[in-house]
């Protein structure tokens, strides 16, 4: 097997190869500012929430994927192409039209968030979509956003230009204090996992990246799953979709927006983190943490998704709800990794909704999540699958509420009864996001609200 030993990537159109002793979990932000002396990219929070460090990955298909440089490590960047605010000027040093436009619109005040907003705008030229969704990952404390929104509305759209990229090659980066593996096949990944059971398994790093950016840790061994072919698989079938564990949310969202039956999931995914987070974050990572909130997990449970695990003894499959064992505990055995997730397609005419409550609409962690999938025949609810997040020690099915709905007539009183059942079976805690009382009351109301929405008694 040919192994590459140095991290290389393209920076603002120029090939870069780092010295072999560069620490792979150094964040791109730290490297840009401290080593490359490119200080246009700013550190606002180092937790992927403010967007001041936004840079753009130039994807092979021509997509411009905004990403937080504070959470992206050099090891993950290997083989990719990245553009920073310094890389937007033309050969004569003239500012890019996006830069001119934001300045003309009075879209800057203190200017600290600005380079990040510029990069989001540059990505938006190609990515398009709703402007608030595009901007959800960029905070500005000065302007009140109105002039920034003005500038975005004036930005010329651009068609994507695909770029040729070599296919990934397995790599092992040996720094003095860290070994960073980048396998490209499942077999390599499983072998590495077995040989290095305590290594950190890193996919998009939108959660684990805090270990580097915030806690300043340097784990001795890291296995990065981003390039493993089997984990990047996307298969769309009439019965459902097979999503590799390392497929980023960005791609999953594009699928759910267009594939019949998954629109409800798409609406939730649009509120999961920000574009920057969705460029790197993965469904496999979300499952692996087994978080009690698990932004994208309740929909999996409502859909009846299953998870395929791969290990030294082959693969096995289980329901996503069985995979989530307890508070932050999953069903992985030593040496096992999550290979892919099967999302069954809801039947035509099924009602599917994925709601989330948070203090702020965008880029906020769920205080209470509720996903509901109903089949209704002749005015009667035939099947009900309800799952919640943030309302107990783990994301789970709401069995009592399901029981209350299944077989019941499709009426408001059935939903009210199910809401009572739901409130009776959840055990939320109070924390910085919400009190237990609010979580309980609002969870029941989310179910009640579905009646209004689905019975369309009101236009809004």
């Amino acid at each position, binding site marked *: 097997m040919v192994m590459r030993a140095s991290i290389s990537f393209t920076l603002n159109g120029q090939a870069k190869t780092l010295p072999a002793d560069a620490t792979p979990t150094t964040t791109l932000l730290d490297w840009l*500012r401290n080593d490359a002396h490119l200080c*246009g990219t*700013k*550190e*606002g*929070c*180092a*937790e992927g*929430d*403010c967007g*001041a460090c936004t840079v753009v990955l130039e994807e092979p298909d021509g997509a411009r994927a905004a990403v937080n440089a504070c959470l992206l490590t050099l090891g993950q960047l290997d083989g990719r192409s990245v553009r920073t605010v*310094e890389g*937007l000027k033309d050969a004569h040093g003239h*500012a890019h039209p*996006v*830069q001119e436009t*934001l*300045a*003309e619109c*009075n*879209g*800057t*005040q*203190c*200017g*600290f968030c*600005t*380079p990040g907003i*510029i990069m989001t705008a540059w990505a938006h030229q190609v990515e398009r979509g709703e*402007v*608030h969704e595009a*901007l*959800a990952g*960029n*905070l500005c*404390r*000065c302007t*009140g*956003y*109105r*002039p920034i*929104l003005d500038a975005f509305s004036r930005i010329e759209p651009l068609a994507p230009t695909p770029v040729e990229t070599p296919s990934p090659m397995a790599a092992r980066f040996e720094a003095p204090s860290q070994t960073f593996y980048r396998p490209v096949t499942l077999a390599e990944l499983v072998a590495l996992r077995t040989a290095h059971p305590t290594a950190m398994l890193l996919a998009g790093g939108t959660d684990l990246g805090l270990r580097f950016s*915030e806690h300043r840790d340097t784990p001795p061994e890291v296995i990065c799953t981003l390039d493993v072919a089997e984990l990047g698989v996307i298969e769309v079938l009439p019965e459902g979709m097979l999503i590799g564990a390392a497929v980023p949310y960005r791609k999953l969202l594009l699928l759910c927006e267009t594939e019949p039956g998954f629109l409800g999931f798409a609406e939730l995914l649009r509120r999961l983190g920000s574009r920057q987070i969705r460029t790197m974050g993965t469904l496999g990572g979300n499952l692996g943490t087994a978080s009690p909130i698990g932004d994208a997990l309740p929909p999996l449970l409502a859909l009846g998704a299953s998870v395929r695990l791969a290990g030294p003894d082959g693969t096995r499959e289980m329901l996503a709800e069985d995979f989530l064992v307890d508070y932050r505990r999953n069903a992985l055995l030593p040496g096992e990794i999550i290979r892919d997730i099967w999302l069954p397609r809801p039947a035509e005419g099924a009602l599917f909704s994925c709601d989330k*409550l948070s*203090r*702020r*609409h965008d880029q906020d*962690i769920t205080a209470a999540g509720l996903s509901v999938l109903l089949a209704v025949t002749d005015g009667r609810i035939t099947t009900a699958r309800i799952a919640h997040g943030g309302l107990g020690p783990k994301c789970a099915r709401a069995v009592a509420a399901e029981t209350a709905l299944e077989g019941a007539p499709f009426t408001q009183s059935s939903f009210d009864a199910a809401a009572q059942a739901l409130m009776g079976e959840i055990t939320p805690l109070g*924390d*910085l996001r*919400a*009190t237990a*009382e*609010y979580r309980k*009351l609002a969870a029941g*109301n989310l179910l*009640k*609200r579905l009646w209004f929405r689905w019975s369309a008694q*009101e236009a*809004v």
Partner: protein
Amino acid sequence: MDGHIDKLTIAGQSIRHDSALAHCTGDAKFVDDIPEVPGTLHAALVLSEVARGKLLALHTDKARAMPGVVAILDPKDIPGHNDVSPTHRGGEPLFVETDILHFGQALAMVVATTRDAALLAARAVTADVEVLTPILSVAESLAANDLLMDPMVMVNGDPDAALAASPLRLSGEFSCGGQEHFYLEGQICLAVPGEDGDFALYSSTQHPTEVQHITGGVLGCDYNRLSVHVRRLGGGFGGKESNASWVAAVAALGAYHTGKPVKFRMPRKTDMAVTGKRHPFLFRWDVGFDESGRIHAVDALMAADGGHTLDLSTGVLFRAVTHAMNVMAVPNLRVDGRVLRTNTVSNTAFRGFGGPQGVVLSEEIIRHVAKHLGRSPEAVRERNFAGEANGTLTPYGQKLEGDLIRRVWDETKDLSNWESRRAAVDAFNAAHTWKKRGLGSFVLAFGISFGVQAMNQAGALVHVYADGSIRLNHGGTEMGQGLFIKIAQVVAETFGVPLARVRITATSTAEVPNTSPTAASTGTDLNGWAARIAALAVKERMIKVAAEQWGVEPDDIEMSDDEVRSGNHRMRFSELAKLCLAKRVQLSAAGHYKTPGLSWDPKAMRGEPFFYFTYGASVAEVEIDTLTGEYRCLGAWLVEDCGRSLNPAVDLGQIEGAFVQGMGWLTTEELFWDKQGRLRTLGPSTYKIPGSRDVPEVFEVRLLEGAPARADTIFRSKAVGEPPLMLATCVWNALIDAAGVASMDIPATPERVLMAMSAHK
């Protein structure tokens, strides 16, 4: 000759921020972008993990042995005073000596070769602490009467008798939370040692002079050893007024002991744990009124959570107390203002500086009176507007004319189509069961000047060079508010030269000393005049040279369009500059300005503390989901009085930005402490400032036209930094209207909205 506001050409133009394009290209440098010289060291703090306790011992051996560690410094290593009190009253140590008074309080500092090494070593320092039970709420502290200063009580008329005689009485209690500044650029200072005990401090501060004073106190050196340089801040909002000073002192102390440049920049979580915030308040009020809605008397307690020390609380409370009745003339009043001690970080300046907490009290009272009478809050507010029969004096004795109060409100009603919008909202609510809309309004009269008289002064330094280029320096700092471009406009206007001739330069205590903070919305008022006075001094000398050259009277000389003219004589501004040099005439002047006519008797709580008032009004429409408490702001309509604006584009930016920041305080920004007194909302992932979607979907702002300042302000402009933040109060009122309740504590999070409705049922 010049300066008449009808003849202005540059002052009054909408000109974008001088750094706008540099912001966008990433070329604008902040302190952390200054290239580090080899050998630069980094500092990190050792923080208390408890909110209250006695520090028994610090264990530093393990940390000292860690790679890269150069020094660990504690109170014993402070050569001057272990005190960073901005009011120099003492009792605000840089590092804890014995008493730990809040979570995250600094115990010591580490200096190391890299920032990571410093952070890791700081974490390795352990402390023996006798843990005590913290006091975490205002109510608790109030019950114990644990005051940080004497009560500030403002009395007017006879409130007790008037309350007793009032036909109708109501009373109540509510509270508002604090607010994290969340400047995008965290606190930072780079301290660079020079020769013989000199230090250059590159600080992100709103108050370079205080950085100099506090650092001088900590190092025990004369102020002339320290020069503080500030090109720009990545946001301040009051958070870098007093707090930036101790940050600078940390960097300077490190540089003092190591002889090397030391940079101190905290991780965001640390920054949020150790820096002060907006003061939370608890309000208790008692109002007497009649059937007409006229308020006869108010007796109110305003209890501010000062945190563990006083910091700038005196000034915050002064503004809260003086603005408690806002636009209303209330003949009988008692406002009992108190600053309570709690075991939280010491609360500090935040845009509005007590004003926002003051004005919400009047709105709460108005709303309750209106509800009781079955009238609209708008009707009750109007009934009590200052001016005409209600009287034109504030409770502290300063004249408050009512005409602009009425005018901004009338124009806002027009702008928002108030009557038809009210009808449309009511119709919507009649037709919908689980979505409800609400309308809210607000009117503001905000006094401009620092409460501390001595702070109402400024200095500037203007050089004209032989080529006619001009260098401008003044005491104000640029934190995004567009101060530098506005002052440059003033100077260009004064000389009659294009703006491009005026070079904007970094604020520096070495160029303009003894400055006031850029705060209290006074940056342009004070520094604009100081710069104009300096420019006029140079201009007068230049005109004298031209007059002698041409044999004409100075009064017959005009400077405009980059030229100097008199009759048939003319020469370019640059030619005159060259001539002045040849004639050995000084082309440089320092200007100094002090606000005229201010007075204040702090014992009597009487006087004329404000140079003038600025006015504004607002209307907001919201839609709430009554099942979850979620909401959207559908629209906001604002009219703001900027006098004769120096730069309408910049002022508009201040108005919109302040409004959204105010919305954040009133809606989603919630600070959460756990039972041990640890702040848990320590980053943007948990502390939610507004995002782009949270901005009103329709957002119309109008600058009040044809209303030049009556006071002799710089070109008759008015201050704009803080007042529009309070205009967001209309959003709070609108949410309460939509929810159909009488009141809601601040911030009105979705949870508060739902629980208020749930309790109301």
